[in-house]
């Protein structure tokens, strides 16, 4: 006639009642153990599925990303514009008055790509009608910031945008 060792708060119990309590607590600890095991296995399985899927959503390796643009000066034609992509930026190269000039082709207003009007020697933005001259300065439009210049070097009659 002893009280339950787990101290359930009940008073002195009979032999049968004690056994019932003891096996109950054993049952529930077993159940807890299996619940923990199932939870752990579910977590591992979830990780095994989630890892490749989340990896797949990461940015892929890109190959042949041009580090620099090299262009022989002989390829440039008067009044003509050339567009390049360099690290996600569209670069426009024009050759006017025997002078090459390079700009970031994104309009300084809202980032649309400007086109080169070779008859009037101006850049025109298709979105809101901004106009820039061949130096990148604003001629007209909703913006007063000139086109961003892109630096380049000329060595051995080859134009290099590093």
């Amino acid at each position: 006639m002893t009280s339950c060792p787990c101290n359930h708060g009940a008073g002195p119990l009979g032999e049968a009642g004690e056994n019932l309590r003891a096996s109950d607590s054993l049952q529930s600890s077993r159940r807890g153990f299996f619940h923990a095991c199932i939870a752990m296995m579910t977590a591992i399985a979830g990780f095994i599925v989630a890892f490749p899927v989340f990896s797949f959503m990461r940015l892929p390796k890109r190959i042949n990303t041009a580090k620099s643009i090299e262009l022989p000066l002989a390829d440039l034609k008067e009044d003509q514009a050339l567009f390049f992509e360099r690290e996600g930026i569209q670069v426009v190269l024009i050759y006017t008055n025997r002078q090459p000039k390079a700009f970031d082709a994104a309009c300084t207003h809202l980032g649309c790509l400007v086109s080169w009007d070779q008859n009037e020697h101006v850049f025109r933005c298709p979105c809101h009608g901004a106009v820039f001259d061949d130096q990148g300065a604003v001629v007209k439009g909703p913006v007063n910031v000139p086109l961003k210049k892109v630096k380049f070097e000329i060595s051995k009659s080859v134009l290099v945008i590093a």
Partner: protein
Amino acid sequence: MSTITKVTKAVMDQVDERFDLTPVIEKNLTRKRVPRTLSWAGCFGGLAFLIFCIQIFTGILLLMYYKSDSERAWDSVTFIKSNVPMGWLIQRIHSVGANFMIALVFLHMARVAYLRIFRKPRELHWISGSVLLITTTMLAFTGYLLPWTQLSYWGAKVGTEIPSAVPLLGEYIVLLIRRGPSISGETLGFFFAMHIWVLPAISVLVMVMHFLMIRRTGISRPL
């Protein structure tokens, strides 16, 4: 852990107060009763469905990079395999999964045929299952062309030759499914559309019918 249980219980109580959902879930899922005699072989159909779900999922992932253009298809698959993180794994799961799915569909059919489960009242289960066998095979066949390799090209060539055995219309059917006299970029586009939309949509529709029929007649039990 206990907070998760508490939150789940609180949410479910609110849902149950409105929709009485727990008895439905218990009856159909967590406390669903199946015949005591049902063996593990009874899982083949369910496993085939599980692989179908995996195929849908990995297929959607591959679709982010795949290009159904004869000029770029091979390059895009190579890009997935070598440049996309874990792309090799997703691509391999999708291609190997197709084989597993066909194997499981055949095991499922073999069990149903051997135990003669297809008899009345389950004749339509067998017929809808046959339609699913055809769509599964067609899914595997159309998917095989998409990487645009030598193997897939000649596989499609040989496979599309088969309907030419049909009397009178055979040659015309071959032209129709090749979208021209030979395997070309048009064939690729046609197979691609079949592979990602038409066949999966038909499969899902027939699967829903297949599963509802089983629910209605109950799982077969031996005499």
